[in-house]
């Protein structure tokens, strides 16, 4: 199988950057999951779709927009009413869902190539993201596992909290490099490490 070429390849410079004298505020990395799949249920069929997610990705999603769960192997969260983003380490998740999700339940859209996954982790992750997004990143307002759909500067983004100090961001592939530059610049103040 041919490996995917990352749009960040030429700009992803490993190592520490910015003001790191007081330590690293955030760690930035591209997670490169094998599968990014959008699932969308017809009205009233959300529970059936959530059941498919449980069966295929092993994740018991809560009902409702924004709810989600993150594990090491896979994660999923609601991105809009009846719509979910499911991310898996392995390739081929979209095909598996397409075979499993009935016509009357909803639709499956493979976005594995179309979105770039960037992880922002560390004690200053919420501070850095708050520079970019008008979203409340405090833990009570943005609980573990949950997600949001938002936008910055024409760049559409879906963000999931995958740890107390960790956020996974999914942006359109064509915008990924611009977003990466913005993210690195916003991180300079707190010191960042690219992994």
């Amino acid at each position, binding site marked *: 199988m041919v490996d995917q070429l990352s749009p960040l390849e030429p700009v992803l410079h490993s190592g520490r950057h910015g003001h790191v004298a007081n330590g690293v505020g955030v760690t930035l990395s591209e997670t490169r999951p094998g599968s990014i799949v959008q699932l969308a249920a017809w009205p009233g069929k959300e529970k059936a779709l959530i059941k498919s997610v449980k069966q295929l990705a092993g994740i018991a999603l809560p009902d409702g927009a924004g709810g989600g769960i993150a594990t090491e192997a896979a994660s999923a969260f609601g991105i809009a009413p009846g719509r979910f983003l499911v991310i898996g380490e392995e390739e081929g998740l979209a095909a598996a869902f397409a075979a499993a999700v009935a016509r009357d339940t909803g639709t499956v859209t493979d976005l594995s190539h179309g979105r770039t996954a960037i992880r922002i982790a560390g004690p200053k992750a919420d501070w850095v993201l708050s*520079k970019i997004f008008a979203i409340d990143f405090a833990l009570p307002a943005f609980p573990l596992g949950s997600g949001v759909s938002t936008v910055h500067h024409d760049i559409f983004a879906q963000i999931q909290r995958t740890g107390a100090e960790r956020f996974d961001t999914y942006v359109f592939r064509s915008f990924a490099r611009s977003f990466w530059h913005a993210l690195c610049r916003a991180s300079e103040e707190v010191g960042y490490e690219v992994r």
Partner: protein
Amino acid sequence: MSPRRTASGGLIDRSRSIRFSFDGDFYTGHPGDTLASALLAQGVTLFGRSFKYHRPRGVLTAGVDEPNALVTVLRGDAREPNIPATMLEIYDGLTVVSQNRFPSLAFDVGAVNQLGGKILGAGFYYKTFMGPVFGPLKGTRFWMFCEHFIRRAAGLGRAGKVADPSRYERMNAFCDVLVVGSGPAGLMAAKQAASSGARVVLADLEPRLGGSANWSGESIDGTAAAEWAAATVAELKARPNVRLLPRTTVWGYYDDNTLSALERVTDHKRTARKGEPRQRHWTIRAGRVVLATGAFERPMVFPGNDRPGVMLAASAARYATEFGVLPGGKIAVFANNDGAYRSALALREAGTSIVAIVDVRAEVSTAARELATKAKAEILAGQAVVATEGGKTLSGIKVQTFDAATGVVRGDARSIDVDFLAVSGGWSPIIHLASQAGARAVWDEKAQAFMLPPATERWTGAGACAGEFSTGEALAGGAAAGSWAAGGASATDPVPEAGGAVLDIAPAPVFEIPAGGKAFVDFQHDVTADDVRLAHREGFISVEHLKRYTTLGMATDQGKTSNIPGLAIMANALGKQIPEVGTTRFRPPFAPVSVGSLAAERYGDIRPERLTPMHDWHVDNGATMYSAGLWHRPMIYARPGETVDQAYVREARTTREKAGIVDVSTLGKIAVQGPDAGDFLDRVYTNMFSTLPVGKARYGLMLREDGFAMDDGTTWRLAEDDFLMTTTTANAGKVMQHLEYLLDVVWPELRVHLTSVTDQWAGAAIGGPRAREILAACVTGTAVDNETLPFMGIVHGEIAGAPVVICRLSFSGEMAFEVYSGAGHGTHVWQALMKAGKPFGLVPYGLEALGTMRIEKGHVTGAEIDGRTTARDLHLDWILSKKKPFVGSMMMDREGMTSSDRLQLVGIIALDNRPLNGGAHIVERLDRETPRDSIGHITAACYSPVLRKHIALALVRGGKSRHGDRAYVSDPLRDRFGAVEIVSHHFYDPEGKRLHG
């Protein structure tokens, strides 16, 4: 030892010295000093020259309301004018120059303007430079002659001309409670709200939190107020649910409790740390807001009130107490209220002598008299200051008997020898944010001030801002406000006791001492009391007109010290009460905001770049890129020595003769999925899609609801319920919104999902006589012959191990295929195609060649689908289904849409063999002198390598009926005139033979 620094006391750090320069001279100060306090401590009294009359000016205030001591800060090549010296923290290496003076601050030739007082009064510009022209010295011509000199003489500093190298950032904050102002009321409110668990943001524009507690000299909770404030701040700082924002001016109050604030992050530092912004703009979304913004002391308006050495009384006390600076040695106080007596005592206790307290009131309260006695000051009751003496510093004042009831001065003037005058004309609560939030301020007769309006958003006031002028009231008010803001939890801690005299601060209603001579209302804009009266006499009786005619309150300080006195003088001239005259509504910003902080991270990066999967390949292989919307696309792949024209002609010719490949990843791609997807497409496209077999594609046209053409593209049926719609690059977002609207609002019953998959796919269009051979050489898993892959057919296969979807369709007019792969495989597949194509002469081509081939073929794009053309105008009526309704079908047959004289698509050939231009008009009769009678215009033009002619597409009245006609191109803007022939828009292979191989 600094001449005016006290031996001890104040909140400055005397253990360290800071060296800075002002107008080229070096001075020292201490950490904690502002530029104003440091210079005052050195005995400097002259800070600047006034705007219009170039009068010497000193320091009037100790805060953000400063109208006089405005300076320009230099940092490298960057210069920032109009910074109040009262707000500027000193740091080692700070370099500051004064403004509006030539050649020097002490000797300024512009001071001659003081002699022209009457001429330069209100309305100077209107009277001098507008109106009918008599001779050479009036009107616009005169203005153009004078402008250079006036702009040089007047003004508020000079802006820099180099790009600002500073970094700015934006920040979003969310909180339950925002407290604005950190005086006793604000601290109490924050403490109360925080103790109930609420997320609290406390912002204050000063570097040192604590507000008046830092200089009041009072006690709170049995300890010095400043110590109480420091302890409370430390307690708040330790709480995880509190964010303290010193040096942060909350400047705007917008809908739904969204507030804007500017944090000066490194303005007080010599150098910023790596990545640290100079300023940070905060957008704060608060559940509830406590406005604890305090009050501004007002000056009195009397002749000579702008002389250096005249300062607001509380500001003088603040310099003495907080900064350890004695603003004068022999001081007089001039007041209309009791509050000034407290300032007098503070000045006395710091080590000055109070020569006299001049009070316009005949009767002075016992509490005030006691303070005067302690200050060892003589009270001159029922008197007023009528003049000041001295030059660049104060040497004395003149005092006369004054009747506060009638406002009349009488008797003989008496001179008093002083070097400093502390003035207090009462207090104005700082209600700007509440006013911005939407309500009209309420006049309070007793306080002689506009008070907070009723709350229109979820805010409350506390402290002096809410009319709670004593510290005890402020503490109680703050606690109550904090409790309310946190959701009504009752106060947990007892409100601390405040020590110090409780005074009735209500002033006598005296704003001006009318005694002849220039008495300034707006110091920064040099507006005098006489200017206000002149405006009244000339008919400007509305406060809004007064403001604009005199420019009162319109300088960078926005009239913080001048609005109320100006209004009072106007009311007096009108014979009305102040509330009858009204007040202007405050607008954001409360204090100046740098444009850099609003642009923040977008500075130099107006929009993000959108890159295709093969972007780096294009750049590495010599493509000249240009932007198409947000996208970056190859224009040409020039070979060494080639011009743009040579490159695209070669690319287009090679494609037609052999094969060419172009990156089409930018085309909008929308996944249209669901059981009703076919039905949905039937409704949005003019032609039928539900009948399209799986594995086939079809060209489609969309109309707007009003019947005009909207967008076109091919849609592929990948599976029964799965269509892949392509749109033009430019319209992708618009089409998506249009479709989402239809699904959400018009046909919610349809089971269709839309997803933007533009970025999921990399697209390469490969066309030309050898294209099929190239595919055959590299595609595995499927045949690509005519039977397997007919025109508009779709096959699935692999190229170099990567899965691809291939659709046979053409934009160039040649046999062509669009090869789609996962975006992450895009470069891999592209390179494999290039490699396979090498023996066949395959070339990559850019947008110029793409545009040329589409013009030759007569295909329309956004240039023709311009929102004014119908399907019939573009000869796309063959695609208008009569079997079904679709969006736009009801409106497309309106009379005007079907009229025979509409502009319709035609081809144009230049008969003079010269280039044509988009936008040029087509005319029947050529008239170079007075171009007229346009019958249409060119939409796109190129040199056609196939025809070896300059050709164009055009929209021309009558369209097809003019084929074969002679006409002219008329382009006066570019001086291009010449004969053309109108022909069919199908220049090349009209039968489509090449398309089908």
